[in-house]
Structures are given as C-alpha cells and as structure tokens.
C-alpha cells in the first residue's frame, strides 16, 4: 500500500490506532532506559564533572527540535502539492511538540552553561540560531491560531514554513558570521560530533536519541488524530447547522 492511501483521515486513524501502542511502549522504554543508564550508570567527565549527564536530555531534545521543523517542512510541501489533509494537520500537530523540544534544549543548555561558561546564556551562534528557531515556531503556531478557515490556515502556514526555512538557514549563516570573532570556541569538549564522545557516554545517548525520536512520532500520531477528530466534529456540526 502506498503511503498516500493513509492520507485519508479515516485510514490514518485506523493505522495510528494500530501502531500507537507499540510506539508509546517503545519510546517510553527507550527514553527510560537511556536516561536511567545515563543518570545512574555513567561516570563523571573528567572536566565537566557530573554536568555531563545533562547531555542525555540536551542533545536529543535539540536534535528533535530541528527534526520536528524539518518534518513540518516536508508535511507542508505535501499539503501544498497534493493537498492531503492529514499532512497539513500533522504539521499543525508537530509544532507544539517542536516548541517543547526547543524549550527543553534551551533550558538544559542554560542550566549547563551556568557551571561550564559561568553564564546562563551567551550569544553563541548555535544557541542564537536555536532562539531564532523558537521564534519561527511561535510565529507558525500563532498563525495557525489566528486564521479561521482551516484550509486557508494550512495554506498560509505551509508557505510560512517554506519561506521560514529559507530564512532560518540564512540566519544560521548570518549568526555565525556575526559572532565569529567573539566566540571563543565554547568549551564543549565532546561537541565535535559523531563518535568523539566516549563510548561510555555514547550508548545511553543513542538510546535517548532514539527514544526522543519515537516519542516525537508517537506524540505526532496521537495529536494528528486529535486534530482530525476536532475537524470532523466541526464539519459534522457545520453540516447540521446548514441543514437546519
């Protein structure tokens, strides 16, 4: 069966009812294992001490914050091109999850920054572009809320998501340029990417990343179902009003 057949809201509800239990169990299992392993089962970093344990929340959240936006971008494109309602509603459903992930990344980062850099916040390019991402999320959600007609809202937010993505990338480069001279290679010893992280830290981190990813998918599935039901209720009510 092609993925397009799930574009029908009813089919989607059926599918999501089937996969959701699995998703929820798996995601909670991964997150719980990863976090418990990370929190109780890993040693302290020789330079960062216990604060390194924050990584198990910070990095997966940051990752999902970006991926959620990316998913919204894809869903918006699908809506604009093939006009599948489920995909528009999935984008709508993903946005609040994305914001929460962004906020978690920002907050854990801030808490981590206090002992490591001696400040809650620095205008480091990475942090700054995250803040901009947060603003894009806010604007996107506000626009969904403000437009009454659901299809028009989907159209407008989709274009915003597209244009916003271009500008988000542009901002990322702008910010890097802007703060390049002042940014003293923020003391993030393990931030060089990939496997530069010690294995001890790496395995639980991977578990957490997978867990956050699954949790995101589960939440989006569930929330999309909610949006579909609300939309259907509104449609039924509207028809009833018309017949009367």
């Amino acid at each position: 069966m092609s993925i397009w057949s799930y574009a029908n809201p009813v089919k989607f509800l059926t599918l999501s009812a089937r996969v959701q239990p699995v998703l929820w169990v798996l995601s909670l299992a991964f997150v719980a294992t990863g976090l418990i392993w990370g929190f109780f089962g890993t040693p302290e970093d020789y330079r960062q001490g216990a604060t390194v344990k924050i990584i198990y929340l910070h990095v997966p959240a940051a990752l999902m914050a970006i991926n959620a936006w990316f998913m919204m971008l894809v869903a918006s494109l699908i809506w604009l091109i093939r006009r599948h309602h489920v995909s528009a509603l999935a984008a709508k459903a993903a946005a609040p999850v994305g914001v929460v992930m962004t906020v978690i990344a920002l907050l854990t980062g801030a808490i981590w920054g206090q002992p490591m850099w001696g400040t809650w916040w620095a205008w480091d390019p990475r942090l700054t572009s995250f803040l901009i991402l947060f603003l894009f999320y806010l604007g996107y959600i506000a626009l969904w809320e403000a437009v009454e007609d659901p299809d028009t809202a989907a159209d407008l937010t989709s274009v915003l998501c597209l244009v916003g993505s271009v500008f988000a990338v542009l901002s990322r480069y702008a910010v890097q340029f802007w703060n390049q001279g002042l940014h003293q290679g923020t003391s993030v010893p393990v931030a060089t990417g990939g496997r530069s992280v010690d294995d001890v830290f790496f395995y639980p981190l991977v578990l957490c990343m997978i867990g956050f990813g699954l949790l995101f998918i589960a939440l989006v599935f569930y929330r999309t179902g909610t949006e579909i039901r609300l939309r259907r209720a509104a449609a039924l009510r509207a028809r009833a009003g018309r017949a009367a």
Partner: protein
Amino acid sequence: MMPELGKYATEVLSAYAVSLLLLAVLVLWTLRRGRAARATLEAAERETGRHD
C-alpha cells in the same frame, strides 16, 4: 543508589526536573486534549446521527 553528583548536583537535578516536567506536561496536555476531542466528536456524531 543515588549517584554522587558532586558540586553540580543542583544543576543536573534541576535540568532533569525541568525537562521531565515539560515532557510530562506535553504528554498529559496532549492526552487530555485528545480525550476531549474524542468526546466532542462523539457528541457531534450523536447530534447529527452519523457514525460512518
């Protein structure tokens, strides 16, 4: 059981607390909204006599 967090206990614990709290709020809010939506839909279906 509790690992020794040294001088960074507050930071690490508050980071975990804040994140887990936010996640919990997100999940609970999502579930509550979902349940409300189910109820709304059922009411609408009953009112309009449609169950397809």
